[in-house]
C-alpha cells in the first residue's frame, strides 16, 4: 500500500505525514522549539553579563565607551533591514513570484555580509588596541577592576551571534539556489518560512545586544 500511496503524494510530502498541512505544522512547531533552545543558550550569557555588570558597574561603564556607537547603530539598521527583506522573500514566494523571491534573498544575504564586514572592522580595531578577552588583554586605558571581563563577555556574546549570522547566510544561500531550481511554490515554501523565523531571531538577539553593550551607561 505504501507504494501507490507514495504516488499520490506531492513530491515535497514525506511519507510519514498524512498531508501537507500536518507536515507544515510539524516543521513550524519544531522550529519554535529550536528557537527556544537558542534563546536559552544566549540566556546563559545574558546571565553572566548581568552578574558581572552588577559586580563591576563602573568598569562596565568605562569599558562600554570604548565601543563604536556608530558602527553598532549602522549594524542595527542593517540587520533590521535584512529582516524586512527576508519577510519580503517569503511574501514573494507566497505570491508565486520566483524572481522577486530570489532578489529578496540575495539582498538579505548581502545585508548579512555587510553586518559581518562592519563587525570585522570593529573586531580588528579592538584587537589592535589590545582590548582582547582574558589573558590576552593588554590595554591600559580603562579604569576599574578587571576590565578584561567586559571584553570577554563582549566577544563571547557578539562572537556567538556572529556565528549565527554566518549560519543564517549559509541557509539563505542554499534557499537562493533551491528557489532558482524551482523547488518552491505558493503551495510549498516551508524552508523559506523557517529560515525567516531563524533570521528574525538572530536579528532580535542583536537588538538586545546593541543597547546592553553600546548604549547603557
Amino acid at each position, binding site marked *: *500500500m505504501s507504494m501507490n500511496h507514495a504516488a499520490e503524494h506531492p513530491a515535497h510530502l514525506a511519507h510519514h505525514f498524512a498531508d501537507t498541512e500536518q507536515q507544515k505544522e*510539524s516543521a513550524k*512547531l*519544531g522550529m519554535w*522549539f529550536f528557537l*527556544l533552545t537558542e534563546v*536559552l543558550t544566549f*540566556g546563559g550569557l545574558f546571565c553572566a553579563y548581568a552578574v558581572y555588570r552588577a559586580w563591576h558597574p563602573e568598569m562596565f561603564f568605562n569599558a562600554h565607551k570604548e565601543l563604536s556607537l556608530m558602527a553598532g547603530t549602522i549594524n542595527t539598521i542593517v540587520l533590521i533591514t535584512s529582516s524586512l527583506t527576508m519577510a519580503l522573500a517569503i511574501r514573494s514566494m507566497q505570491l508565486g513570484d520566483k524572481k522577486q523571491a530570489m532578489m529578496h534573498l540575495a539582498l538579505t544575504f548581502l545585508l548579512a555580509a555587510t553586518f559581518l564586514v562592519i563587525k570585522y572592522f570593529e573586531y580588528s580595531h579592538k584587537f589592535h588596541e589590545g582590548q582582547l578577552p582574558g589573558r590576552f588583554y593588554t590595554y591600559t586605558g580603562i579604569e576599574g*577592576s578587571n576590565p578584561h*571581563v567586559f571584553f570577554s563577555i563582549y566577544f563571547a556574546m557578539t562572537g556567538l551571534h556572529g556565528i549565527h549570522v554566518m549560519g543564517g547566510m549559509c541557509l539563505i544561500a542554499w534557499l537562493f539556489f533551491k528557489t532558482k531550481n524551482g523547488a518552491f511554490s505558493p503551495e510549498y515554501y516551508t524552508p523559506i518560512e523557517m529560515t525567516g523565523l531563524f533570521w528574525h531571531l538572530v536579528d532580535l538577539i542583536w537588538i538586545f545586544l546593541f543597547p546592553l553593550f553600546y548604549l547603557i551607561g
Partner: protein
Amino acid sequence: MAATVADTKASMAYAEVNYLNEPKGLKSWLLTLDHKRIGLMYFFAIMTMFFLGGIFALLVRLELFTPKQDFFGADTYNKFFTLHGAIMVFLFIIPSIPAALGNIILPLQLGAKDVAFPRLNLASWYVYVTGALFAIYSMVTNAVDTGWTFYAPYSTTTNTAVISMTMAVFILGFSSIFTGLNFLVTIHKLRAPGMTWFKMPLFVWGLYATALIQVLATPVLAITVVLLMLERGLGIGIFDPAMGGDPVLFQHFFWFYSHPAVYIMILPGMAIISELITAFSRKQMFGYKFVGFSSLAIALTGFMVWGHHMFTSGQSELSAVIFSFITFLVGIPSGIKIFNWLATMYRGSITLQTPMLWAFAFLFLFTIGGLTGIFLGAISLDIHLHDTYFVVAHFHYVMMGGTVMALMGGIHYWWPKIWGRMYNEKLARFSVFFVFVGFNVTFFTQFILGTRGMPRRYYQYLEQYQTLHEISTVGSWLLLLGFAIMAFYLIHSIFKGKVAGNNPWGALTLEWTTSSPPPAHNFERQPIAVNGPYDFDKVAAEITYEGTPGFGETVVAKKETTEVKH
C-alpha cells in the same frame, strides 16, 4: 484493528519481512531513516558505553578493596572515577531510555509511521557518535581528573584533557536536544486518529516531560561548557577568582542543567514502570491523569532546586532555605507516582514475569534513593553528609537502582516486539536476582560508610572502613555476574529464541497490534485508538505467546479472546 482469532493466529509467526531485514545491507542501516533502526543503533552504542563505564567502576571498586594503594595511584584513580561518572551520565544514562527505547517504541505507541523529523533523528545518532569519539579521544590522550562535574577553577588549571571532554559533552548535548525536539513535535502532531492526550500511554507522557527538560535545560549546559573552554583557552576570567570571576557561578550554571538532567534520567524510567505495572497487573492505571501530570510537575519543579547542590558553597542562607524547601516539594509528585503504582497493583492479577521483577526492583531501590534524597535536601543533614559516600550511595540508588532497573525492565518487556523472539525466562530470573542482590551489597554499605564519615573520591582511607569497602567491592562482582548472564541470554535469544508472537504479554497499547518485529512502516493499516491504553476491564487482549511461565507455574492462563469492541 479488531483482532479476530483468525487474524491473530495468522500473524503469530515471526514476521518474515520486517524492519530488521528489509532493506538489507550495512549501508541501508547507516543511512536509515527508520526510527526503529536508529533506536537499535542507539541501543548498541549505549550498551557499549555502559560496558566501558562499568569497567571503570569495577576498577575503582577494586582499588578500594584495601585501605592502601594497590593497583594505581591517586592520579589514575581520579581519572578512573571521572571517566566512570562522565561516561555513565553523559554517554549512557541520559540518552539510554529516550534515544534507544523511546525512539523505537514511541512512534509505535502513537500509531505513527515515524518520528516527525527522521533525518534529524539520524543526525542525532551521528552527533552522539561524534561526541563519544571526542570522549574516547580525551580518554586516551590525557584523561580528565576533575570529576564529571568539571568544577572550576580546578578544571581550568589541571593539565589533563578537559577541552576534548567538555567538547564531547557539548556535542552530546545537541544529540539530546535533537531527540527531545523530535519527540515533542511527534507527540503533538503525529498521534493516530482517536489518540487524544488522555489516551496516550504513560510512557509517552513521561517522554514528553523528559523532552521538555532536554530542550529547556541542555542549552544552558552547552553555553556553560563553552565558557569553561574559553576560560581554559583564553583565560576569560569569568570563573577565575584571581581575575575577578566567580567559581560558584559555574556551579549555578552547571546545576541549572544537571539537576533537571537527573529528571532526564529518571522520568523515562518512571514512564517504563507505569507500562510494566499496568501490563502485569492487568489493570487500568490508578489515577492515570495524576501520573501523567506528575511527570510534568516533576519536570517543572526540577528547574527550581539546583541550589541544593551548593549548600556548602557559601551561597546565602536565605537561598539555601528556599532551595531546601522547593527540594522537598519535588518529593510530592514522585510520591504520587509511587502510591498510584501501588494502588494499581492492589487487587490486580499480577504475574511475576521478568519485566515485572525489574519493576519491583525499581520500586524498592528507587524508594530508598528518593527518600535519602530528601535527607540530603535538608540543609543540616547535608552539611554533614556532603561529599561522603552517603551521596554516592544516594545517587546510585536513584540512577542505577531507578533508571537502570527500569531500563532493564523495558528492554525485557519490548524485547519480543523488537526482535520477534523471547529470551530465556529462567536465566532472566537469575540475572534479576544477582543484579538486585549485588546492587544492595555494593551500595547499601556505602550509606553506612557515608554516615560514618568516609569521604568520596579518596583512593586511600582509614582502616576502620575496610570491611564495608570489601563488602561493597564483592557486591560489584555480583553485579558483573548478573549483567553477564543477561548479555548472554539476550544475545542468544536473537538467534535461538522462541517466536514471540504479536502480543506476548497481552498488553493493550498500540505497539502490540502490529507484527513482531514490525514492518518498516510500522503498521499495515493506520491504527485507530479507540480504547484507552490500559482499559483491561473493557477489553481483553489475546496473549499470543503461550510458553511464558508464571512464577512456579509453567503457563499463564490464556485469556478468552473476545471480539474486541471498537
